Structures are given as C-alpha cells and as structure tokens.
C-alpha cells in the first residue's frame, strides 16, 4: 500500500513535470519536419534518411525527396529509427479491478474505472505504446465495454481516443460452474434479449398503427448487447482453452458478430479451425508452451505465434507484467522473429494489425500520408534489446523524452553515494 501511494505520488509529480516541460519546449506547432535516419513505415518499404512532414498533427508527406518548408520546425533524428507507435489491442491493466462479480454485466464500461496515474500507462508510454484498448478481464461472461486511450493525459477524457469500443465476452466458466452451464447462460441471455427486441418492435409497430408517439428507449442495460448484435460493437471473445474456440466461432456465425478472438495459451491446438474461420486473433502473452510427447516422453516447445503464422492467421500480441520480457510488445514480436517469423510481419502485429482489430487503423498503425502524426523515435532497431524509446510523438506533439524521464534515471542509476553505515559492535 505504502509503496503504491508513493509511486503514485511520484508519477503525479512526474506527469506534471513532463507536461509542464512540454509546455515550453515543444509547443504544438503547425508545421513539423522529422529528419529520420531510418523510417519504418509499416505501410510500405523502410526509408533511409527520410523526412516526415507533419501539419496540424497529421502526416502530410513521407519520403526521401520531401522538401522542407521554410517555416517548418525541424526535429533532428538522423541517428534514430522512427516508426509508428505500438498499439495494444487488448489489456485489462490500468484498472483498479478487471472483473465484476456478476456474470452478465455488458452495461458497465472500463471508461469509468481507468486510472490515469496508474504506472501502467506511464510505463507503456516509456515502452513506446501509443494506444491501448482497455477491456474488462477474462472472468466474466459478459464483462462490459472497452475504451481506447493513449497513455498520456491527466484525465481519462484527455487520454481518450475512442470511448465505446469493443465488448468483452469470456467463455471461461467462472468458479464451480461448467462450460455446459456457461454456454447455456449465454444462449439464454441472447434469446431473452431477442425476445425483448421482438416485443419492443411489436410495441413500436402498434404505436405507429395507432399514430401514438413512441418514445420508449431501449433498456440501457441491454443497449451494448443490442449494438453488438447490429455490428455497432466488436465482440472480443476470450477462449480459455482450445475447446472454447469452436463455441466462439459458433457464436460469431450464428449472430454474425464482428469478432476478435482473445486466446489462452492452450488454443494453439485449434489453429486450423481459427484459420478456417478467418477471424482476427489476439495471442496470449505466453508465447511458448511445452507439450509432453506421448511416444518419446520428451518435452516439446510449441511456439504459438509460429503455429498461427504457418496456419495463415492474422494476429496481434499482448503483454502482461508477470515476466520482464513479456511486458514489452517489442519483446513479444522479437520472440516470434527468434523462431523464424519475418520481422516485417512481426512488427505489423504490434502496430497495424492491432490498430485494425480495434478499428483505429484510419489514424494509427503506420506512417502514411493522412494518418495521425503518432510515432516513436528509437535509438536502434525496434527488436534489439539494447535500443530504447528516445522520444514519443502523439499527434505531432512530443509527449515523452527519455532525457527528461526522472523515473528511468532512478531505476537505472546507483543511489547517491551516502556513507554506508558501518556496523559498530
């Protein structure tokens, strides 16, 4: 407890400090020109010694032969690698609690629970993440709706990218229930919802018939599920184990939902089914699972991203804080590359693909003319453990500078040399 409050205090100060410093170092300029040593556009080929022209926070031009207007403010990054910021397509961090106790609460929203000063956002910014979809956790059948935020801003409103994005469905049965009951619960909810809509339409029809004014609104507790059924929302369906995947696909088919599958580590067994269904996928943070070979009794390493890659499935990575590598999106991508995935593809699944899955690819996910000027400046190759995020630009505004990152200094430099107490006895 004590420590957390201390951390939060520090981070408040820090954010205030950063924000303050921003205020005069890098005011939002109309015209910007980034001179980068290497630009990883994701959209197309990498560009050596290119220029990115930014106007009012959107990219006007990218290339080597872009001539810089006289009035543009030039950002020197000749020794840097510039690429679009990372996007988290699914996370439940940054909330006080991820799950509600009730099994069916589609009406709640993470928007009301996101904690702007949670260190998670600060860390994410430091690690080059520029947008994340915060969804409820995996323990609730109908968990609620999500919120897309950027990890920068003092209030949720300031952080907001999209308020009403995605609805979380979890097929993992909650304690002392079974998968049978869980599925039945879901079916019953939907059938009751459809009954409700039918009656609603009926009442509406009657009202029209009798030329009465009809002002009845749809029940707020059902609204989000209704939106899900008419494709206004995307369903993020969590599959705990491979056995849940067929059911998720069945749900998607029967109700024709926009669906993204959020997979547990066991789901690689169903890679074929998923490929057939052509649904987008968010992999579990654990990318390597071990399986005992029945014949030889040996342990075999299963590299999940490779299995899906070979099956032709389009996926995005996610992170968790349980292990220090895993909490970096770039590390997840690097792991995939380690076992034979192409670097371009790996990078796509931490930038463009997640942006597509959460529906912000019109703004984020790549460096293209017309997209938002949101990019990160790296000291080296993105998948090299030795390279750091040096600067982060969100919509043409530099919101993070490593040189001014007090926390990072604290975490890396030795404590101020004070006289170590000598034992006196």
């Amino acid at each position: 407890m004590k420590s957390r409050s201390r951390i939060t205090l520090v981070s408040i100060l820090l954010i205030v400090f950063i924000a303050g410093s921003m205020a005069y170092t890098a005011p939002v300029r109309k015209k910007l020109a980034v001179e980068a040593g290497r630009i990883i556009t994701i959209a197309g080929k990498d560009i050596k010694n290119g220029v990115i022209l930014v106007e009012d926070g959107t990219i006007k031009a990218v290339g080597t032969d872009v001539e810089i207007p006289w009035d543009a403010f030039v950002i020197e990054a000749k020794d840097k690698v510039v690429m679009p910021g990372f996007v988290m397509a699914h996370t439940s961090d940054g909330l006080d609690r991820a799950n509600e106790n009730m099994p069916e609460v589609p009406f709640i929203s993470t928007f009301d629970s996101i904690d702007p000063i949670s260190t998670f956002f600060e860390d994410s910014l430091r690690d080059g993440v520029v947008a994340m979809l915060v969804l409820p956790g995996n323990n609730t059948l109908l968990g609620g709706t999500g919120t897309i935020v950027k990890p920068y801003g003092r209030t949720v409103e300031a952080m907001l990218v999209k308020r009403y994005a995605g609805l979380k469905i979890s097929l993992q049965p909650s304690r002392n229930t079974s998968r049978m009951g869980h599925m039945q619960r879901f079916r019953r909810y939907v059938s009751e919802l459809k009954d409700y809509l039918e009656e609603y339409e009926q009442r509406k029809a009657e009202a029209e018939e009798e030329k009465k004014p009809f002002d009845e609104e749809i029940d707020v507790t059902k609204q989000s599920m209704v939106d899900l059924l008419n494709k206004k929302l995307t369903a993020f369906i969590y599959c705990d184990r491979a056995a849940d995947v067929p059911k998720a696909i069945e749900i998607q088919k029967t109700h024709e939902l926009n669906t993204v599958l959020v997979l547990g580590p066991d789901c690689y067994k169903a890679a074929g089914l998923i490929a057939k269904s052509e649904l987008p996928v968010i992999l579990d943070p654990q990318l390597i699972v071990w399986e005992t070979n029945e014949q030889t009794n040996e342990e075999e390493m299963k590299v999940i991203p490779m299995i899906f890659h070979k099956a032709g499935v389009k996926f995005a990575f996610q992170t968790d804080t349980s292990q220090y590598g895993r909490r970096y999106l770039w590390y997840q991508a690097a792991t995939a590359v380690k076992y034979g995935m192409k670097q371009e593809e790996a990078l796509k699944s931490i930038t463009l693909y997640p942006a597509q899955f959460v529906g912000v690819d019109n703004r984020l996910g790549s460096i293209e003319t017309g997209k938002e000027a949101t990019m990160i400046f790296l000291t080296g190759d993105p998948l090299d453990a030795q390279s750091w995020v040096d600067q982060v630009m969100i919509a043409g505004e530099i919101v993070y500078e490593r040189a001014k990152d007090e926390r990072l200094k604290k975490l890396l430099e030795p404590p101020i040399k004070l006289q170590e107490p000598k034992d006196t006895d």
Partner: protein
Amino acid sequence: MDSNRRVSPIFLQVKGMKDIKGIFVLASLFLLFISAGAFSAQEIAIKAGTILPISDAPVENGIILIKDGKIAALGPNVAIGADARVIDAGGKFVMPGMIDAQSRLFVIEGELNDSSSIAPELNILDGLDPFVKEAPEVAAQGVTAVYISPGSHSLIGGSSAVLKLNGSMDIGEMLLKGDIAVKAAIGVSANNESSSLGRLSDYSSIRESLLETKIYVHNREKQAREMAEYNKKRAEYDKKKKANPAEKADKPKRPARFRPNPTREVLAKVLSKEIPFQIEAHRVTDILNALRLADEFGFTLILDKCTEGYLVAGEIARRKVTVILGPVSTSFIDMPSLEYRNHDIRNAAILSDKGVKLALGVSGRDGASSKFVALAAAMAVASGMDRDLALRAVTLTPAEILGVADRIGSLQAGKEADIVIISGHPLDTLSRVEMVLIEGKTVFERKDQQ
C-alpha cells in the same frame, strides 16, 4: 497409423478453407493420400474368415462390400467390383465397431455437471474437449462410438450424445446423434455420504419438476389456443377496417406473450416420449424409485449403472426397462465407494438371464478406459453371461437403446461401415485388433511392433 491420426483433422480444416497456402493443401492432401483408403468414394471389399454381424448368425469366409461409407452387401458370395480396394482378412474375425455406453472420453475434468441441481437444458456437447489425445488409443481397441452423458452430481444433468471416434477434432464432425437422453441421478452422493432422507428429497424434487413441467405444458397449450383465437379475431377486425374504416369496431386485445422456458421445454420432450429419461441409480431403493417415476409419468426409462439391479431383476424385466450396466467390475472405479457396496460381478449375467435388455458400459476412471469395452464383456461372460448376449451388449443393444441402431451396431446392408478386423474372437482378450474402419475410412491399422 500416426499419419492417419493426424491427417483427418488437417483434412477437415483444409476442406472449407478459401485462401490457403498451396503447400499446406498439398502437404495435407499428400498425407491424406498415404493414409490409404481415406477416400470413402472408393469401393472397399473385406474378405473375412469369420463375420460376426451380431444381428444375424456368423458368416464363415464371407465378404463385406462397402460403398461410400455404407455397407452395400454382406454374405458368402458377393460380387466385387474391378476397381474395389480389397482388404484380405482371411482367417480373421470381422465385427461391427463396439460402443462404450458409459464413456468419459473428451470430458473436461470436473465439468460433467454445472452447479445447479436441476439443469436438463444443458448439453454435454458444450462440455467436451475434442482435442484430447486418448481418442485414437480407444479407437485402436475396436471402439468406434462412445456415448457420453452428464455426471451424477446434478439431479438432472442435461442431455447426452453419441460421438464417433473418426479421428476428427471437430465435435460437429464426430457427432453421430445429440439429445439422446436426458440424464438424471437418484441417490448418488457426491462425497460418499448417503441418507434415506437424501434419497427421498432427490426422488421428490425430480418428481416435482416433472409435475411442474406438466403444468407448464398445459399453460403453453392454453396460451397457444388464446393466440389462435386472437389472430382469428384480429383478421376479422382488419377485414372490417378495410371494408369501411369509418365503422366503429373494438380492437381485440393481444394476449400476454408466452415466454418459453428452456428447462421445461426439455422435460416436456421427456414426458411426450420424444427423449428417453436416463436415470442413474445404484441401490435397490433408488432403482425402485426410478421405476416408480416411470410408472407415474410414463416416460421412456433407461436405467444407468443399475449396480444392485440383480436384486430386483424381475421388477426391471417386467417393465421392459432397458439398462446400461456398468462397471462390470469394481476395478474400474475407485473403491471403496458407497454406491458400489453391494456390487456383484454376476449382475449382468443375472439381469440378462431374467431377459432384461442391457448394454454394458465401462464407466472407467478416465477417458482412455473406454478401450476396455471388450474386456468388460469378457468379464461378464466369465461371471456367467451368455457369450452372444455379452457381445451384443457392447454393439447392437446399446445402439438400439440409444436409438442409433439404424446407423451403427451391427453389420447389415445399409448401415454405416464401422468395422473392426480382429485376429481372433473379440471376447478373447489376447486377440489383437488389426484394422478399424469408420464409414469406410481407415482410422487405425496395426503395424507390428515386434
């Protein structure tokens, strides 16, 4: 055989795939190809030393002809097409694939029941994991179909299903028939403690829910009548209106909408004999209670487990109630357990002698133990059951009890070609399964390790 196991799932995945990496297709097709006879299109002829059709008398040196997954002809002299693939099982036995009527295969540990005690609307298919590894081992012992029903920790656990072990990893592909029966359990205690009061409450709460269902059905019909009434009136009203809008006519009132209740709907099917009611009962009292319920509500009763059945064999026989009996030996379950206190290995023998129609199940500790079906039958024989009946009790009888006898359970023209080729008589435990076909596809072929 390995390739065989792996192939079929890949194949199933490939089938529907639109944009697929060419290599992937080729590779899997190639694998498919080497797993010979996987094409059901081709005509297959099995020359057998002894055919045990189960439905009829054994045929010596007979031939079974298979066309697109079904048995086309069977007998001592059947004409074999020129292009037919001939499997020579000379000197070997050929029999229909066996059925484990009390299987736990594909079941996810601890998920045979939900928390609620009366839950007939649940479906076992939602609780299965098709990705388990045991299935091929079981198929390799000549078991081609398993019957899986919910557990005994709920009074009414949900509906059951019969799956085929055709090596698929898609429940849909494996499913032979769903909603076979609604599973209930009387006097089975989760934690080995049992009281006569507990039994009473079990019995009465099942009875109560059946009674409520009767009421529910009554209301549903009443409402349906009202609705029809309303529609008629409404039609007239509309006609009038159309005729002359000016005329004053009072608009009929729409009756309250009827909310169908899934729980009751299922039990209604049971009462109308659409679905049999499978009641697990061990002790005499429980068995008698089950019979009493059947007498009162007239549903089709299947007695499950029926451990002390031999003590009331007459009662069971008199009512022509079918029985899925198991385990034959207490070695299959964890002893000492209260329900099995008076277990007697002669149970099957006595019941069948009394003329009860019974199927033998393994009801083992785990999924893989479904492979012991033939073993269970042999045990029953050792304790006095008739050989033919015992063999029938793991093939045709279960198929009949579960209502899938039109498709599996015996070797007859028109039935699905789920066929097992064995080196010796199936009841001789030491004889080895040589080959297993399901709907004409080879799912197992023995490669000699020695």
